[in-house]
Each structure stands twice: as C-alpha cells, then as structure tokens.
C-alpha cells in the first residue's frame, strides 16, 4: 500500500503582527479523510495558522503543502482554488443575500438562473444532511443555520480541506451534535476537516487526531485522540505546572443581598428571546459564578443588569433599591461596576488615550465647572497604573496600543476604583496570558473580601469552580442548575451546560 500524501502539511510557519509573534515555527499534518483537531488556548496562534492555510495571511516563512504540492497563496481565492476553504468564527455571509446566493458567490455560472441554483444548493445540502432553505435571506436565519450555509459554501467549491474555526462556540448542544454528524459525513466523503477548538469533550467526540499549539508553536503533532485522555491534552495546551492558579477560601459570612434579579427576560433585535426569566441574588462579599456555553444568554444578561439592554420583563434591585428602569449612569452611581466581555469596543474607547480611558467612570466627579480637572484625571490614571500594575508607554498614547492583559488591568482597576457594591465581570480573563489571568483573579478575590458582591460570568469552568461561592449554569437563556463548587464534578456542570437535567 503506497502512502497517500498528506491533505495538508504546514511546515515551520512564522507569522508576526505588530507587537506579537502569532506563529513561531508551527507545524501541522492532516491525513486525507480525517477530522483533525487543532487545540490551544486563546492566543496560541490557532486562528493565525489557519488564516495562513486559507490564504488570508501570508507567512513570513514556512511551507504550505496541499496534497503534496507546495503553494504560496496570494489570497483566499488561491487557497480556494487549491481546495482549502475556511469557515471563520465570524461568519462571512451577506445578510441580504439568499442562502443560494451566498453559497453560489464565487463559483456560479455567468448567468444566474435563480431557481436552478436554489435546486442545486438544495441537493448538495441534502447529500450531506444539512437542513436549509435555499431561498431564504440569511438575516432571517439562526446562528446554527448560518453556519450550515458557511459549510455549504465550502462544499459548493468542492473543498478538500475544510477549516472550522471554533464552530461550536455559537451552537446549542443539539446543533453541536448535528455538526458532529455533518463533519463525519464529510470525512467519509474523503474530505479532511480541521476542527479548531479549546473544548476537549468535542475534540474527543468528533476528531481522529489532534495537534496542540502553544505560544505560536506546535507542542504535540497528530496525536491519535483514541489513545489519549483529555487531561493530557489539557496539560499540553496550558504547558507545564499550571495548576489552577488560585484556590479561594469560600466566603463564610455572606452579607445581605446587594444585587437581586427577578424574572429577567430580554429579547434581541431580531425579537428572539435570549434571556428567559432569570432570577438570582448576589450577597455582599459573595462571588456568584455563571457557567454556560457561549451564546446562551450570558452577554445580554450582563448588559441588561448594567442597563445597556432593554428588558422585556423582570426587575433589578441594587442593595434593595429598584433600578429596573434606571439609565446606566444612575446604576453606576448607585455602586454597580461592569467589566464587559467586549473590552475594547464597550469598556474602553480604543482611539482615546490612557488618561481619558481611566476616567470613563469617574469623569463627572472630576469636573471643575464645565471643565475636567486635568491634574486630577492624570492623578487618577497614575493611581490605577500603580495599584494594578498596568504597563503603559505614554499616558497620551491611544488605548488600543496596550496589550490585552494591560487593557484588562486598567479596565478592571477603573471599575473597582470607587469600591463598588456590585461588580459584573463578564469573561474577565478570556484571552489573557497565564500571569494576566492570575492577576485578574486575584483582584476579584480581594475585591470580594472587601465586601463587593461579584457576578462572575465565564466560559472557563476551572476558573468558576475555583472562585465561586455558588455556581449557576445558564442554558438557552435560563438558569438551569445551581451547584456548590466544592461538591460538584466538572462532568456534572458540563452536563447542565449541555442542557441535561
């Protein structure tokens, strides 16, 4: 039996961006007809490596071999011609186009016969078991349906290699299972699927082999998933000796309720219910964790509490005072602090400088007449920098120039500067390096000790288990379970996250 050439062979790939080396000698080999996991923490270089393979980025050095032939893709078109198609994390779909138009874009007859293209798209979808309506416009579709359109696009171009970048992040557990079936059908058809993820259960369920990246390089290549346990993969991802960085003494004395939510419901702008009747309380000094698969209502819940999202129903009280209809400003004045998930877009103004960003919460109290006291503003900024160990260049340089960890330290520090009564921390450690994670977690723990009630929303189960006094699980917009973190296994929480009761 002659050895078939690898479907994909990436050799010693280097790619740098201003200020970061995203890939430092990464390797990847994928056999034809297999599902291959690419694992790594946020910032390990997975997405960059895949963008190199898909022709979006050009590497500074290294070789890209597809089916044994070397390629230097000038653009995504060249990669597509070679049979490599990437399904990006943010979908590249055109909302006002129909499913069929989106699928046919890039490869269609010169003259478009609407009906016949819709039929062909429908047939292709059926062949791989992808449920879809070809004549519907994409803006009307759910996230899961949109993802199927993306996969259809790849199949339409007869992709031999499909790259799925964190495909389950936006899916419900049912949809994720469905995706597993589709992926298997495509592999059985002789195609290779690269499955990027940091969720180990999916990797073991869907994939044949796994390659692990850390710090931009490959630390383990093509491990057979069957023969390796999830714990070993986790170790490889995070590197040596990274126990969960912090173990917190649970709060014994929980103070009076500082935040209470009563039957909170929220609809998104498409009118879909995204939060359904959530009720919870956070006591002074307590950390209440919220676990859940991304997209199960955590973000709208946090936004609603902060006053950035309109409520469909329900009530919110801060230290017993009703703030259900209060604008964000009143809530923050009443002692509510918020570290939003989208740091640079919501929590900070990227183009403004470090001082200006430091006073976003407090500038109204720094006024001298109509003017902002520049001296006080600078002093406040320097205070934050000192206390939270933020590394900045010039104070008048744009915020966007800071690294992720420093951005987050400044943001968290700013929110905690006037000792809030309640802190909502949404994904506070996502994407940070190990030191950054530890620093932020320590800050949260200290803050709780000083009496602040913290609602901690995270996708990192270990973080939640380590920090929370109580752990709630959200699924499809509702709180479906509550656990004592000292008395629960990861598997039990995982089952609840997946919607099992």
């Amino acid at each position, binding site marked *: 039996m002659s050895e078939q050439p690898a479907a994909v062979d990436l050799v010693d790939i280097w790619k740098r961006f201003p200020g970061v080396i995203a890939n430092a000698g990464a390797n990847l080999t994928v056999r034809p007809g297999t599902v291959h996991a690419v694992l790594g923490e946020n910032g390990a270089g997975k997405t960059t490596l895949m963008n190199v393979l*898909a022709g979006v980025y050009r590497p500074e050095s290294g070789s890209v071999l597809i089916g044994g032939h070397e390629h230097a893709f000038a*653009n995504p078109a060249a990669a597509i011609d070679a049979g490599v198609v*990437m399904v*990006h994390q943010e979908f590249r779909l055109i*909302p*006002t186009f129909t499913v069929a138009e989106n699928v046919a*874009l890039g490869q269609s007859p010169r003259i478009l016969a609407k009906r016949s293209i819709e039929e062909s798209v429908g047939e292709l979808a059926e062949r791989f078991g992808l449920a879809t309506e070809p004549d519907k416009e994409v803006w009307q579709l759910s996230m899961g349906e949109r993802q199927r359109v993306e996969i259809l696009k790849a199949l339409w171009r007869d992709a031999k290699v499909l790259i799925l970048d964190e495909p389950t992040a936006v899916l419900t557990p049912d949809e994720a299972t469905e995706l597993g079936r589709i992926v298997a059908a495509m592999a059985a058809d002789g195609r290779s699927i690269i499955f990027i993820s940091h969720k180990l259960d999916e990797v073991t369920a869907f994939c044949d082999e796994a390659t692990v990246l850390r710090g931009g390089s490959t630390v383990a290549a093509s491990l057979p998933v069957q023969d390796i346990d999830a714990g070993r993969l986790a170790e490889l991802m995070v590197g040596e000796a990274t126990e969960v960085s912090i173990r917190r003494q649970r709060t014994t004395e929980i103070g009076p309720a500082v935040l209470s939510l009563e039957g909170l419901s929220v609809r998104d702008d498409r009118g879909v219910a995204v939060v359904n009747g959530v009720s919870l309380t956070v006591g002074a000094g307590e950390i209440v964790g919220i676990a859940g698969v991304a997209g199960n209502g955590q973000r709208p819940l946090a936004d609603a509490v902060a006053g950035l999202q309109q409520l469909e129903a329900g009530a919110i009280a801060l230290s017993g005072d009703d703030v259900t209809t209060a604008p964000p400003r009143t809530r923050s004045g009443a002692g509510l602090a918020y570290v939003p998930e989208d740091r640079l877009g919501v929590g900070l103004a990227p183009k403004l400088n470090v001082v200006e960003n430091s006073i976003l919460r407090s500038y109204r109290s720094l006024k001298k007449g109509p003017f902002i006291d520049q001296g006080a503003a600078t002093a406040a900024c320097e205070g934050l920098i000192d206390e939270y160990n933020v590394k900045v260049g010039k104070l008048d340089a744009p915020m966007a120039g800071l690294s992720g960890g420093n951005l987050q330290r400044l943001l968290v520090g700013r929110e905690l500067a006037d000792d809030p009564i309640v802190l909502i921390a949404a994904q506070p450690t996502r994407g940070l390096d190990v030191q950054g994670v530890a620093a932020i977690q320590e800050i949260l723990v200290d803050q709780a000790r000083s009496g602040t009630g913290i609602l901690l929303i995270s996708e990192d189960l270990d973080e939640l288990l380590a920090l929370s006094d109580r752990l709630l699980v959200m699924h499809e917009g509702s709180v479906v379970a509550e656990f004592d973190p000292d008395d629960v296994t990861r598997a039990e929480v995982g089952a609840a996250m997946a919607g099992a009761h």
Partner: protein
Amino acid sequence: MNETTVIGLLIAVLEFGTLLYLAALGETIAEKSGVLNLGVEGMMAMGGVAAFWAGVETGNPWVALLVGVIAGALFSAIHGVVAVVMGADQVVSGLALTIGGLGLAAFLGQDLVVQAPGARFEATNLGPLNDVPWIGEIVFDQTAVSWIALALGVIAWFVLTRTRVGLILRAVGESASAADSSGTSVVKTRMIAVMIGGALAGMSGAYLTLALAPGWSEGTTAGRGWIAVALVIFGAWQPGRVGLGALLFGGLLALEPRLQTFGVEVSPILLSMLPYLLTVGVLVVLSIRSRHRPSAAPAAIGQAYRREDR
C-alpha cells in the same frame, strides 16, 4: 395650454431624464460596490468639457461622446485610487473630486466658452415613425443617446440581478470581507465600478454639451450631479426605480421653465427644490422601514477594506 406646449414639455422630460439617468445609473453601480462617490458633478463637468472640445476638434458627435466617456472614467479613477486603493475617506475624496473637477473643467474650457458647437446629436430619424402622433413626436424625437441610456439601464439591471458579475459586485458592496473570502478582489471590483460610474457621468456631461444644451460654459452642470446622487437613494439603488425617479426628477426640471406657460402661479424656483426634499423624505421612510430588516442601502458603503487589519 395647447398640444405643442405639452409635447414640448414631454420631450424635455425625456431629455432631462436621459441626462439624470446616465449619471445616476453610474453612481448606482459605484454605490452598489460599496463606494460612495460625491464627485458626480465634477465628473459630469469633465465629461462635458472634454466631449465639447472633441466635438469642436473632430466634428463627430460619436467621437466626442466617446471622449467624454473616457474623460469621466479617467477622472473618476482619482477617487478610485485615493478612496479605494489607498482607503482614504470616501466622503471627502468625492467632494474634492467635485471641487477639483469643476475647477479643472473651467480651467480647460476657458477658450471653449465662446466656441460654437462643432458636433451635436440630432433626434434620430426613424422615417414615418417620427410622425406618429404623440409617441413619434415625443419618444422618437430623442437623440441616440437616450436610447443608449435606456439600453444601459436594462443591461445594468440584468447584470446586477441576473449574472455572476452582478452578484460579485453586490457582494463587495454588502460585505467586503465576505466577498474577499470567496475569492473576489475587492479593490479591483470597486475600482472598476467607480470607473464605470465615472464613464456614465462623463456620458451624461457629454449629452449635456452635445445634445441637451450644445455649448460649454462654466457651471453648465448646474447642480445636476447632486440630483443624480439623490436619485440613487430615491430609486433605492435599483436601476429600474432609479429610471422612474429620473423621469420624475427630469419632469420637474422640464417643468421649471414652463410653469408659467401652464398658468401655474408658483415660483419655478420653489418647484426645483422638490427633488431634494423628496429624496430626504424617501430616506426617512427607508430608515423607518429598515428598523426590522436590513436597509436598502449597500451595507458596506463608505467603508474602506484592508484584509490584514486586525
């Protein structure tokens, strides 16, 4: 009011309609690809002066028209390079194209102001057809350029809605990153769309100086380029609707000098505000309608695209 004045009015409606439609169709194509070009007025002036000059030099209206088209296309390429290739702001670049275009046309045309037209388009001679009452007298009493405009409108509609090229063009205007990831060159597509827009604006200007009002003077475009920009919105970025809008706005332009003949005691100047006010009205209605569904405007309009930004 007698039959002759009504026929005269309707002839003028189609003439002004042609003028506006050519420019607005070009702008529609550019905007469909995601590039707002506020330089229509300048491109019209450039096309107009170039065509008039070529008419004087060659005496051939077709050569003159072609020169106008080429001048418009080349001039629009400045906007293409600055706003599409370099990725500078489309609003400012387009406005500068208008200011610079009006200035350059005046500069180049300073000696042409006193010139008699060297070439002009006459109404097509279709023999007995021209004598058919009403239809023949109005519809067939137009120059060949009007027929070209009509044909271009149909072609544009067909290409935009029924072909691969149109699909790609619209995709680039809706989401550059989506189009890019399906293997389309965003910059190339936009550049071509901008230059088609320039070519049609140039043709519109040429029609003005060769057919509608043969001659050249500074300011002869008289703000018609802005009406064309308005028309694109009024027609919701669809070649057919833009065409209907061109007839409506063309009708208002044609009516302006004739109001008094029809015994209407309203200042024609007030009438001439209508296209702009109607467009604002349509824009408001479109905005209200698009609250619960995507807007009719190309989603990526005004946004430069660079792939490796992150």
